[in-house]
Structures are given as C-alpha cells and as structure tokens.
C-alpha cells in the first residue's frame, strides 16, 4: 500500500505464482530429505496449502523416495563373508 514504486509495476498474479512454484519445486528434495531450513519449510508448507500442483508434486516425490526406502529388497550377506574378511586380514598382516 505504502510503496508507490513497487505498485507502479506490479507483477501479474500468474507471474508471481509461477516464480513461487519454481522456487518450491527447487526445494522439493530438501524437504523430503529433511535438509530444509525451518524458513524453507515454512515457505514450502504455506505454498502447498494453496497450490494444488505443487502439493501433488510433493506427494509424488515422497512416494518415489518411499518406493526406494520401503520396497527395494535388501540382499542377504553371505554367511561366509565375515570369516573371509577376518581370514584375509590375518593372512596379509
């Protein structure tokens, strides 16, 4: 309201939104990996409350991480491996 200067060239709402969306999509990994700062989290959460497409992107990215974390089967370590390691260490001392 006060600043006449910024009001003189207001950005179109779409433009503003697009810039926000780009910023938010650049934060997606930080958010799902727990690497975002509290400021970033706040900004992010505020944005996805209002923006459906970013909300959906967030869901998808979480799902993707969950697929690897929760569904990728772990391979079983061969029983003989520990013994081989110990043997190898002793013989090459």
């Amino acid at each position: 309201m006060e600043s006449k200067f910024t009001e003189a060239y207001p950005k179109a709402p779409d433009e503003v939104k697009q810039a926000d969306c780009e910023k938010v999509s650049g934060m997606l990994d930080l958010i799902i990996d727990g690497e975002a700062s509290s400021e970033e989290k706040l900004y992010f959460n505020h944005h996805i409350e209002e923006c459906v497409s970013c909300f959906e992107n967030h869901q998808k990215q979480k799902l993707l991480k969950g697929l690897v974390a929760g569904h990728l089967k772990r391979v079983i370590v061969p029983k003989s491996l520990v013994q081989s390691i110990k043997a190898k260490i002793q013989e090459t001392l």
Partner: protein
Amino acid sequence: MSDQTGKQLSKEEKDARFEAELLPVLDPLYNFAYRLTLDEDDANDLVQETYLKAYRFFDYFEQGTNAKAWLFRILKNSFINEFRKKSKQPAKVDYSEVEGYYNTDDVEGESGVASTTDMRTESVQDLIGDEVASALNTLPVDFRTVIILCDLEGFTYEEMAKILDIPIGTVRSRLHRARNSLKEKLEKYAKSMGYNS
C-alpha cells in the same frame, strides 16, 4: 595426515575395535557394493577389499566418528579406482533382463508359463520391489549411488558429499537428476500396469 600417531593400538585392541565398530556396517556395506556392481561375487570381493583397507588404515579412523560413512567412502573409492578398471565389462547393466521384464505379454504367449505362475504367487510388495530394483539398475552408476546413499541408507547431504568427494551443490543436483530419471522409468511401468501417474 603425517604425524597423527595418536595412541598406538596393540593388535588385540585393534582387532577388538575393528570388530565392534566396523563389522556391524557389513550389511549396509554389502548392499551398497551389490547395488554398485550388480553382482554378488563382485560385491563380495569389493567388501573384502574395503575391510582390508579399513584395517590397514585403522589408525586414521577416529573412534566415535561415523564408521559407516568412512567405510562407504573407502568402498566407493575402491570401486572407482580399482574395481571398475579390473572388471571386463565396466558398466554391467543387463538391459535384456530389464526389457524382458517390461514385455511380459510377449513372454506369456510363448514359453513363459513357469515364470508367470511364479509371478502370481509373488506378493504385490515383491513385485514393486523388483520393479524398483530393475528401474534403479538401469540408471548410470553415479545416479544409482546417490539414490542408494540418500533413500536407502539415509545419509545426509553432507555425509554424501564426503563419501563421494563432491560439493554439496553437486550432491543436490545429481540427486535431483537421478530422481527424475528414476521417476521416468517407474512412470513408464505404472502406465503399462494401467495406473495413471
């Protein structure tokens, strides 16, 4: 790292600490090796080599610091410096196997009766896991690596930067590209199964 003698450990102390602090990482380490080499024998060799090096350089390992990250770093360096060179086929990706998986309709029409029945008894969970593994295995090894470190092993960006010897910014961009790639492959699969992404 010249005169960092610290306390010279007796062999007994060294062996005991080695077992207590480094051997518990065996499971994740072997899994990492397997995801890099895509071969159980190669994973075995790589893990043995890693522990041998860790034992030799154990004096440089500071007690109470991140043993897991330290071992992962040694393993990744061994993989790059020696293993890849030694291996006859540098990038072992079995595309035919992956392709076969996607084209199950073709298989069903011909001789794939046995494998189809196996597929039915397998749970949906297993199928998803297999699909994620297939998709992951087709990614370049650098992409596969960051996804494994981050999503499967839960390393932080900072730890990943140390393990991989790259800046955090590179960790982030690599992870981002790796995920886009993986997403693309899995979306293709989801569509073929009739899901809308």
